[in-house]
């Protein structure tokens, strides 16, 4: 075993890791934003909003991420008539997919605040959207922080799937170096270790947040 391949190629590998972080970061920000709307749709009293939201969530949660990625890779050029760079297409697929998962977390966060807080806010004359924005969502976020962090770790783990469509994220970079230097053992073990450390830190953070979320100010 020759672990020197790792420091020798570290720049290339770290570039890949950066890409993984970028994909994860953009996905989290965009899909969480979309998810808030979907979650509010899920709890809406109007059936015309509630049903499509539920269908969206259940549809996406029934499919593997990799299949959704394939779907978008096929549909995006078909619909837009041109080929977007891989990162963008993958990002769209990821955002749509994880929006469904984040939506469920936000929904349960909203429901944990309780309908009567909604009534209390409405009774002072606030509109429904003011109520959601100023009263319900801030409280919901505090409650769902541990679950959100856990889901973010899952997003980061999910970036490995971008390997399949040839995006130059961390796993792909690792496999390229592994092929070139014919040292798969060292490289894949290294990749595993990197993910292990990052995701372990993430799950510890989620655990910490879970323990401390009930502490009063």
């Amino acid at each position: 075993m020759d672990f020197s391949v790792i420091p020798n190629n570290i720049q290339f590998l770290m570039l890949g890791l950066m890409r993984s972080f970028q994909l994860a970061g953009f996905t989290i920000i965009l899909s969480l934003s979309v998810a808030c709307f979907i979650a509010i749709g899920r709890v809406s009293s109007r059936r015309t909003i509630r049903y499509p939201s539920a269908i969206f969530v259940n549809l996406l949660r029934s499919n593997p991420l990799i299949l959704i990625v394939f779907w978008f890779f096929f549909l995006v050029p078909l619909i837009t008539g041109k080929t977007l760079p891989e990162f963008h297409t993958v990002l769209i697929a990821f955002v749509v997919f994880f929006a469904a998962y984040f939506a469920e977390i936000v929904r349960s966060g909203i429901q944990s605040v309780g309908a009567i807080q909604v009534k209390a806010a409405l009774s002072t004359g606030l509109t429904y959207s003011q109520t959601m924005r100023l009263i319900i969502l801030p409280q919901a976020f505090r409650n769902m922080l541990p679950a959100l962090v856990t889901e973010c770790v899952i997003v980061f783990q999910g970036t490995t799937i971008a390997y399949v469509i040839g995006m130059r994220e961390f796993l792909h970079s690792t496999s390229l170096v592994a092929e070139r230097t014919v040292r798969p053992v060292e490289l894949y073990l290294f990749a595993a270790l990197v993910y292990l450390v990052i995701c372990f830190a993430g799950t510890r953070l989620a655990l910490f947040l879970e323990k401390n979320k009930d502490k009063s100010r």
Partner: protein
Amino acid sequence: MTLPLIQIKNLSLRYGDFLALNDISIDFMQKTCVVICGPSGSGKSSLLRCVNRLEEFDSGEVIFDGENLNTTKNISQIRSNIGMVFQHFELYPHLSILNNITLAPQKVKGIQRNEAEDKAYDLLDRVGIIDQAKKYPDELSGGQQQRAAIARALALEPKLMMFDEPTSALDPEMISEVLRVMRDLAQNGMTMLVVTHEMGFARDVADEVVFMDKGKIIERNDSESFFDNPRSDRAQEFIDKVLQKI
């Protein structure tokens, strides 16, 4: 003759199969303090929530201050003229007491922050908790929280104050401080609808008592007559049971 502040005509409300309000018609005049009492499930809270359309009723009409709640386009503004106090206070836990009170005046009535805060301090002083202004709800006792909730409702200078079992969730020694605030309000001429089991308050402070059972109004009388001379058997039964507890 002045128009009633609240006119309710043939109001009905269903939850699935359960008929919470059964064809209720009643009017309430300004500057009266009305206690609504009755056994659990009689529809008292539902009635209150229909007055500011927090519950969507199935049939009938509610006219508040001349506006028909069914046809109005301005439900937000109407609600800001009605103050509501809840059994479990329902302060916003992530905001300080001061911000709890100034939120609606700023967002609904467009009042500037400074003005809203001055007003808020006044109200907090009136209900006796001015020193708690910067604290958060979970740092206050139940009685203090409920008084803060009353201040929050008063901040919009409402024409009507509705109380939905305001003292039911309080420890006994804190009930009187809240009732005192409510009594002051009534004596200063606020129109009040109060759902409560506090019969002492009903007898001493309220002008009228409305007794409800199974979604219908069984009896309505001025408070003295209600307690001394209930006209219906059910009301008599209820009074006996409640007074026995004390």
